[in-house]
């Protein structure tokens, strides 16, 4: 027994020494990792290393896959894999094993498993889902170490969607007796907040509890969450300011346990965190700032020790003082503090001092003056970082007086800097300064030249763009413009004569554009010479094809005179066989335009007015093309996001039978608004489509509902009115609003001052005086906000006048410019709104217009004329000014109505709409619904004093069959009388809207034959008639029809029975026949005139009306669904 004890005791020391020095024994040379590492260090080439690692990985792969590998071996293997990954070799095969190790290993193997997982995977990796269960298990473990490990991995990465699964467990840990667990739990919640803030929204009270935790460590951890939350919403946490201030006071006062000291400074991390929070809370808030002044003062005072950590706190303090509402004595102290930083011999502090100075100099330029000699020294510092920061500082204090010196310094830096990121940034700043403060043309152009040559092809593309814009738009004085452009031309010519091969592509593009536009300004310059210079660029090997096409464009503008043309011909010949299609096209253009100088002058007017280019952003001029393509069976356009959705849809099992025919789904390109005055609006297809989708989705409707709500018809419609207005006014938007500029001007105040000189070297003093020129010591210190911008030399022309002019113009003329949908109504209404317009003008305007009328007006029962404002709104014409329109038309309508043929009087007819007018004639029309056809009634009103002879009227349509009813058209029309023509219309093929075009020719006594053209648009709905069928008949018909369309429609939800209400609206507006309504489903039938039936099956589903239409006639369901949509929207 005794020797047993003795043995034990002798064994103990070695064990204990192990404990006290855990690391020392780890350098065991026998471990496999050790031999691997040694193996690598012995190698000489990268290639050998690669071979060795690949071999290693292969053997690891074998072993991890083998079932005989114990967890212990697995742990060792995992460590080696981590090492290989760190060297940059991929070992994705091991990821799953890392998870397995974390799952199945004992505590220590688990530890390595978790480590490997956290190193290998990131939070978006799909394998991470497999870890959820393990984490869940470990969080419930009774072993503290396991809980710690689980929390550690959770705070580093966790799949966003699985947060709810573990959230309760993590929350529970907030009450754990051990502070380490509580702390980790808080950090895990912080992570959750970062990746999915809404998941932890409901536990904000838990955060407060953590903030009040008795352990300062847990409290510190909770501050991370608060910082984040306050950053997002400072208003919501103002009430906590007092608590934060108290905490900071206690910390600064040294009330925390010694454990939290870092180099005898109390809890610096905590202090900095609190200072950051306070600065966010006090920003722009005097009353909150008031609370923190005292503690900030105390912090500044306490942080006196000369150690990095105290400087860190000071720096944060200064930042805070300058962020919150200013208080003068604190600012003074902070400024002194910044001074200490700047003057410090330690380079890190100097850097931070400069940074702080950059931050505050806008508010207090005096500070820069105080440190001007230091700044000058820093400008020549060997460390580029310091230099860069100094330039940043100078950039902030640039004004018109010191711009040349500062820009020169910046360009100097650019020439030695190699870093792309730096170059891009700085080049942008130089360009900005040059544009703002350029003292003269020469300097500006030269500076921009340097910017382009240095910035080369890495700089932001908007720099050359805005430069060219500046040149082309010009400034206030024409003479100045000319000079600037001429100077640019001169300088570019000399550059091209030098060595253009060294210039970057972007610069060459700028050069060729400027030469193309403005080289005519240089009078002594032959365009052929310029052409030759440009042609040289084409021959250069390193010119990109983009540059070449710019050059071609320039040459096209320039070629004139025999010499020029011959150069152009030569070049275009070479390139007309180029492999690059763009170049080939440009070459062709050049060739043709150089031969035809007249055409050239027309296409590319010299010094052309580029400002009045009207852009029709809705591309409405393409609508005709689109509708044709759609009618011909093309698939409707779908925006990318929708296509993707559909792809995703395709993966979902479709539970509905395939439709028998390919639906030409016109419906998906439906008109849901009238933002462009055209037949089909592309953008509105958006709303139509997504609803369509949600129906097809079937089983996944729940998810898609969300989609619908975003893009749904209602949401889109709410923006309808403003869109309508803005769509009409397409004006190139001015870069800067004129108001802003004026503000900038008026607020400008500058007083040139004498810079105080310090006893220093002459040179530096000179530099200083030039750098700090204009930084007035007398100027009032503006604490809040930036100092006012100085006047800009290159001010863009104010465009306010232009804009308003165009707005008023476009109200009248832009529809006609866009397409021919100009209607008399519009003219009428615009005239009423502009009473000054003299009568003669009016008549000319009226006669010049070829009337086209879009009458989608509702059919009105004879009794209720024009009583449907909702439908009237559809009419783009009416939308401009409905009341005046009605007032104007009503009397006329009433008198015309009396001319309506007796046999048609009893039937439903539409409002009478004017078709076209001139001095002598005015044509109006309406349509009347007969059982088997639609009758178009045209009223010809002779409003002149003389009789009209040989009137001949022709009416025709592509989509309709037109036949004349009754007598042959009137030949003679007496003065101030009305003649009526009737045409019977039937539908050839269904279209959403059909159009009738016509022409009337007539002879006045004095004048020879005159012609007037008109057109009349009808919605398809006027041809729809109710179809009286029984439910059984409906059933058999349904199965027989092959063309179908499905769509979701909005449900009228404000009524008690939404389905019935919706169908009733359809019945009233479209004359559909409701066959039966059974619960949530309803069947409806109609026909196109007499012979083309269409059946509709409606079902209420998820708040929308899922509609399924079938018909034997192709296209009919699509057209009908469109009208249903319209009818429901207008309701």
């Amino acid at each position: 027994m005794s020797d047993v004890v003795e043995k034990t005791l002798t064994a103990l020391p070695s064990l204990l020494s192990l404990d006290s020095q855990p690391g020392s024994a780890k350098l065991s040379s026998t471990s496999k990792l050790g031999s691997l590492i040694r193996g690598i260090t012995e190698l000489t080439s990268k290639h050998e290393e690669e071979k060795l690692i690949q071999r290693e990985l292969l053997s690891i792969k074998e072993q991890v896959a083998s079932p005989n590998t114990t967890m212990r071996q697995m742990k060792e293997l995992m460590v080696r894999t981590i090492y290989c990954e760190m060297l940059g070799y991929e070992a994705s095969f091991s990821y799953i094993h890392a998870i397995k190790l974390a799952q199945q290993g004992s505590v220590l193997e688990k530890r390595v498993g978790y480590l490997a997982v956290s190193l290998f995977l990131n939070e978006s990796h799909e394998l991470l889902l497999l870890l959820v269960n393990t984490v869940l298990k470990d969080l419930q473990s009774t072993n503290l170490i396991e809980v710690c490990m689980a929390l550690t991995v959770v705070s580093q990465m966790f799949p966003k969607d699985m947060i709810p699964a573990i959230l309760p467990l993590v929350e529970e840990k907030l009450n754990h007796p051990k502070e380490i667990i509580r702390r980790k739990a808080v950090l895990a919640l912080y992570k959750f907040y970062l990746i999915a803030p809404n998941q932890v929204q409901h536990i904000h009270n838990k955060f407060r509890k953590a903030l009040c935790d008795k352990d300062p460590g847990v409290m510190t951890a909770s501050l991370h969450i608060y910082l984040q939350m306050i950053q997002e919403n400072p208003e919501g946490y103002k009430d906590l300011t007092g608590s934060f201030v108290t905490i900071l006071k206690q910390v600064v006062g040294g009330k925390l346990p010694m454990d939290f000291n870092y180099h005898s400074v109390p809890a610096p991390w905590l202090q900095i965190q609190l200072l950051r929070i306070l600065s966010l809370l006090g920003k722009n808030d005097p009353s909150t700032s008031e609370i923190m002044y005292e503690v900030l003062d105390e912090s500044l005072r306490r942080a006196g020790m000369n150690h990095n950590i105290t400087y860190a706190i000071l720096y944060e303090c200064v930042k805070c003082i300058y962020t919150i509402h200013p208080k003068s004595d604190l600012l003074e102290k902070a400024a002194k503090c910044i001074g200490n930083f700047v003057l410090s011999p330690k380079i890190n502090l100097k850097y931070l001092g400069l940074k702080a100075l950059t931050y505050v100099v806008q508010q207090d330029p005096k500070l820069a003056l105080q440190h001007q000699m230091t700044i000058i020294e820093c400008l020549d510092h060997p460390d580029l970082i310091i230099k860069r920061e100094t330039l940043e500082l100078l950039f902030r204090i640039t004004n018109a007086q010191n711009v040349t010196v500062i820009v020169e310094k910046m360009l100097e830096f650019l020439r030695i800097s190699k870093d792309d990121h730096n170059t891009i940034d700085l080049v942008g700043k130089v360009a900005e300064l040059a544009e703002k403060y350029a003292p003269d043309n020469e300097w500006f152009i030269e500076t921009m030249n340097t910017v382009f040559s240095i910035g080369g092809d890495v700089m932001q593309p908007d720099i050359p763009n805005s430069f060219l814009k500046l040149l082309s738009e010009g400034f206030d004085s024409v003479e100045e413009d000319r000079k600037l452009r001429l100077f640019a031309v001169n300088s570019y010519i000399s550059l091209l004569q030098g060595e253009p091969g060294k210039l970057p592509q972007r610069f060459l593009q700028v050069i060729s554009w400027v030469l193309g536009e403005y080289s005519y300004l240089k009078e002594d310059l032959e365009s052929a010479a310029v052409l030759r210079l440009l042609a040289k660029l084409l021959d250069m090997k390193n010119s990109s094809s983009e540059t070449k096409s710019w050059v071609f464009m320039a040459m096209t503008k320039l070629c004139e005179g025999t010499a020029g043309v011959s150069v152009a011909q030569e070049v275009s010949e070479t390139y007309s066989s180029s492999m690059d299609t763009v170049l080939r096209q440009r070459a062709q253009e050049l060739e043709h335009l150089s031969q035809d100088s007249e055409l050239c002058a027309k296409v590319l007017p010299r010094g052309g007015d580029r400002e009045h280019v009207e852009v029709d952003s809705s591309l409405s001029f393409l609508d005709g093309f689109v509708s044709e393509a759609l009618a011909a069976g093309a698939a409707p356009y779908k925006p990318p996001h929708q296509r993707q959705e559909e792809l995703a849809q395709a993966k979902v099992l479709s539970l509905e039978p395939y439709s028998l025919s390919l639906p030409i789904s016109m419906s998906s390109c439906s008109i849901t608004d009238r933002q462009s005055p055209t037949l089909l609006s592309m953008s509105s297809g958006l709303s139509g489509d997504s609803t369509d989708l949600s129906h097809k989705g079937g089983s996944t409707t729940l998810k898609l509902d969300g989609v619908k709500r975003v893009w749904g018809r209602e949401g889109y419609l709410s923006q309808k009115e403003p869109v309508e207005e803005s769509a009409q006014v397409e004006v190139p938007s001015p870069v800067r609003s004129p108001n802003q500029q004026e503000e900038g001007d008026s607020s400008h105040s500058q007083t040139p001052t004498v810079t105080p000189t310090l006893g220093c070297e002459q040179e530096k003093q000179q530099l200083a005086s030039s750098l700090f020129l204009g930084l007035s010591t007398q100027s009032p210190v503006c604490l809040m906000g930036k100092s006012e911008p100085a006047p800009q030399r290159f001010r863009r022309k104010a465009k306010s006048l232009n804009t308003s002019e165009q707005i008023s113009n476009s109200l009248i003329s832009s529809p006609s410019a866009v397409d021919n949908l100009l209607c008399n109504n519009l003219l009428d209404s615009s005239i009423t709104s502009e009473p000054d317009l003299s009568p003669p003008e009016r008549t000319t305007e009226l006669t010049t217009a070829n009337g086209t009328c879009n009458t989608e007006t509702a059919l009105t029962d004879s009794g209720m004329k024009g009583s449907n404002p909702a439908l009237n709104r559809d009419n783009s014409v009416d939308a401009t000014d409905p009341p005046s329109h009605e007032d104007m038309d009503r009397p006329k309508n009433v008198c015309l109505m009396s001319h309506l043929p007796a046999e048609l009087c009893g039937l439903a007819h539409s409002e009478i709409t004017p078709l076209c007018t001139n001095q002598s004639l005015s044509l109006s029309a309406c349509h009347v619904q007969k059982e088997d056809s639609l009758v178009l009634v045209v009223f010809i009103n002779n409003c002149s004093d003389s009789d009209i002879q040989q009137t001949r009227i022709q009416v025709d349509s592509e989509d309709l069959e037109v036949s004349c009813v009754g007598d042959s058209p009137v030949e003679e029309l007496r003065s101030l009388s009305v003649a009526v023509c009737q045409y019977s219309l039937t539908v050839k093929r269904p279209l959403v809207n059909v159009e009738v075009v016509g022409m009337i020719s007539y002879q006045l006594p004095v004048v020879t034959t005159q012609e007037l053209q008109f057109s009349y648009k009808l919605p398809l709905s006027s041809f729809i008639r109710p179809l009286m069928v029984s439910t059984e008949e409906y059933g058999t018909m349904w199965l027989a029809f092959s063309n179908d369309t499905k769509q979701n429609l909005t449900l009228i939800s404000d009524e008690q029975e939404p389905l019935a209400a919706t169908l009733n609206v359809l019945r009233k507006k479209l004359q559909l026949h409701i066959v039966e309504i059974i619960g949530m489903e309803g069947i409806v039938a109609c026909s196109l005139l007499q012979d083309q039936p269409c059946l509709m099956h409606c079902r209420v589903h998820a708040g929308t009306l899922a509609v399924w239409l079938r018909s034997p006639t192709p296209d009919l369901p699509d057209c009908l669904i469109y009208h249903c949509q319209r009818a429901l929207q207008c309701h």
Partner: protein
Amino acid sequence: MMQFMLLFSRQGKLRLQKWYVPLSDKEKKKITRELVQTVLARKPKMCSFLEWRDLKIVYKRYASLYFCCAIEDQDNELITLEIIHRYVELLDKYFGSVCELDIIFNFEKAYFILDEFLLGGEAQETSKKNVLKAIEQADLLQELCAFLSPSPVMSTLMCLCTDWLPSLLLLLLLLLLSTLHAELLSAWHLFLCPEHLTLSLFGGGGQST
């Protein structure tokens, strides 16, 4: 928040990498390459802070190793420098005058320490004592496991013990004895062991003898 931390040698060999933001492997490699190059090119007396892309880089050299952190714009550079320093202090204390080799051969330990010190890019525990305590407790468990080697029952036993150091030391002593003499076991445990350990202790003791 800290974005990532890199440790690399003067030769540009990566020794440790910890990423607190999700990035693809390709990006990580690119960033590492660029940064290592940039930092190594800098002279010793130069500023420890860099502006790189839209991040701020704070680096410091300790002997042959560079410690390099990337932080966000509003973060404090100086405190980051102190984070690096505290991490080095921790490594130094743990390994006992740390050198590059310690970190190469025991990089997983360096990771464990880092995880205990920084969590999710924020300083979690800044007290040297507390960090090392947490690490040593876990390590102790490891020593124990190594000592008891491949007994699965033993490892479950380890999992059960929730009270830290004192009881662990006792346990260690007990088990040590149990391997030498099974009979002793019952006698020792009767007056030393906490109640809840009894069962597994018996099982474990029985197996290992």
